[in-house]
């Protein structure tokens, strides 16, 4: 099923949770709403499910306006962060619930529920109670339950939020594989940028009830359209400077800024991974001293002092750092390979 959201608005006690949001999702697509908590992403999802009624705007599912249609008739599968499993029912009864309330016979819904448990890799656990399952298993039961009623649309509200990091990665990969197999239109809400970038066909970055950028994951990361997106998706160095002769100078660093006129105050953002660090000049005129080195696993995070109170953060692959003999106090040369400039209202 496809979705079309048209100028959606919703206020809670005078506070705008969603402010003029429009977007569409085509059939079989996996789209993620990414944003910090309070950005309105969950409210959008709840409006689509019918759990929340928008103040204005329209929601179309498969070309049909569903804004006034009750939840029960929208045929959406919803998965909650805290699973929301019925704790007094067995796993099988949980999964079969959607069919049972529609009057499907016991034999039929039991068969279907077993099929779905198999699909999510939990066959044989049908007789357990939800409290006897691990967090990851519970979330897979919740997913099976949402799929059992054969929805045309799957809505996932921070589905992995309550799980630990390793399990979250595992389930992420699994969910993407499942989506590739069943091709169900899916809308995911998350505040975890890795999750959004890895899973989605398209990412909508939300902030303060508005959509900041609607693009493919690669573009969100490489060509952020606003400062918020650049800062939210991945780590950044943020500097503020004033444009002078199509150039911004910040300490020893210079950035070309052709699209801004002279005297404009701009914010410059670049990722620590977009800083090339070398012990030899290699054409770079900018040098600094390594102030601190922090081990992050596959990479080393270095704070490099550029002198006169200016310093930046760079991430260097562990192997490179070892080979070049980067240690605290060592003099290094840097080049910023990619940066993003935004009009800035804020102060330095």
């Amino acid at each position, binding site marked *: 099923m496809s979705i079309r959201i048209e100028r959606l608005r919703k206020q809670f006690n005078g506070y705008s949770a969603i402010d003029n949001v429009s977007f569409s999702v085509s059939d079989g697509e996996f789209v993620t709403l990414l944003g910090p908590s309070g950005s309105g992403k969950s409210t959008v999802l709840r409006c689509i499910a019918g759990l929340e009624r928008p103040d204005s705007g329209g929601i179309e599912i498969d070309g049909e306006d569903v804004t006034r249609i009750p939840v029960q008739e929208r045929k959406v599968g*919803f998965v*909650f962060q805290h699973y929301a499993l019925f704790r007094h029912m067995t796993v099988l009864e949980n999964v079969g*619930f959607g069919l049972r*309330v529609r009057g499907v016979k016991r034999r039929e819904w039991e068969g279907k529920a077993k099929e779905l448990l198999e699909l999510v890799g939990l066959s044989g656990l049908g007789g357990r109670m939800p*409290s006897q399952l691990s967090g990851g298993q519970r979330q897979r039961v919740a997913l099976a339950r*949402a799929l059992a009623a054969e929805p045309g649309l799957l809505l996932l509200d921070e589905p992995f939020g309550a799980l630990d990091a390793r399990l979250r990665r595992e389930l992420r990969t699994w969910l993407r594989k499942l989506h590739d197999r069943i091709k169900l239109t899916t809308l995911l809400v998350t505040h975890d940028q890795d999750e959004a970038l890895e899973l989605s066909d398209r990412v909508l970055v939300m902030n303060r009830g508005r959509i900041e950028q609607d693009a493919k994951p690669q573009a969100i990361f490489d060509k952020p359209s606003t400062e918020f997106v650049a800062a939210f998706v991945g780590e950044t160095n943020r500097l503020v400077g004033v444009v002078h002769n199509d150039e911004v100078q910040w300490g020893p660093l210079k950035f070309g800024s052709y699209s801004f006129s002279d005297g404009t105050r701009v914010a410059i953002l670049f990722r620590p991974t977009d800083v090339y660090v070398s012990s030899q000049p290699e054409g770079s005129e900018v040098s600094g001293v390594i102030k601190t080195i922090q081990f992050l696993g596959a990479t080393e995070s270095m704070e490099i002092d550029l002198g006169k109170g200016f310093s930046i953060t760079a991430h260097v692959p562990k192997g490179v750092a070892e080979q070049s003999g980067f240690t605290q106090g060592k003099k290094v040369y840097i080049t910023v390979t990619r940066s993003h400039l935004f009009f800035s209202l804020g102060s330095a």
Partner: protein
Amino acid sequence: MKLLLKQKSVLPGFGPALGFTLFYLTIIVLIPISMLFLKTATLGWSSFWETVSSPRVIASFGLSFGTSFTAALINVIFGLIVAWVLVRYRFPGKKIIDMLIDLPFALPTAVAGIALTTAFSERGLLGSLLGSIGIKTAFTPLGIIIALTFIGLPFVVRAVQPVLEDLDKEMEEAAVCLGARRWQTFVHVILPILFPALMSGFAMAFARALGEYGSVVFIAGNIPMKSEITPLLIITKLEQYDYAGATAIATVMLIASFACLFIINRLQWWSHHRQEA
């Protein structure tokens, strides 16, 4: 048993605490109740049986258990609604209503009895209203049920309220997303979770109603075979200095209510375990 005794806790003193509990229960509960049995035993089996199987006593048993059960049942339904309204909605005066719930706890039962009788007697505000449509409340079992419902209301409300407050709203949302109608969500999702709390509210209201005396005697009219409750019969026997007879009736009452509470407790345990297992 050994395992139980060895359990470590952050608070020491399991031994003295258990000792005190047993001592306390013995003084306050066990000794007085055993006196009941001892006194009853002085009667001998045949006169015991004669006392408790007399038609007037049997009728009072039927009345007491019947009205207590009905009142507790009514309280389960209305208590659930009251608790629901108090937990789920915001409205002006909510705090006052919340306080009113406890009034039957605080009021001396005789005061409650007089108040109810005034309202429900034939010339009372509600009594005359009901009388005009042919329903007689004062001096009938119906009046007794009203009084027992009054004193039992707080039990169900206070038992259900915390459980309802803890109820995960997402569970209801999950149910409607899966296509459940409102009543289906209520019957299949909410009610099973509230069931243990409803049962304990029922049990407490029922137990309280069985022993209730003060609020009932005024409105009941105490007509033998018709509106005479067992506690009143016990008092009557005591007033006639028939102590053994009074304790005989009391013993039957005690055993019967103990059995009732036991059954309710098992039901509760069973439904609780089904959820938490």
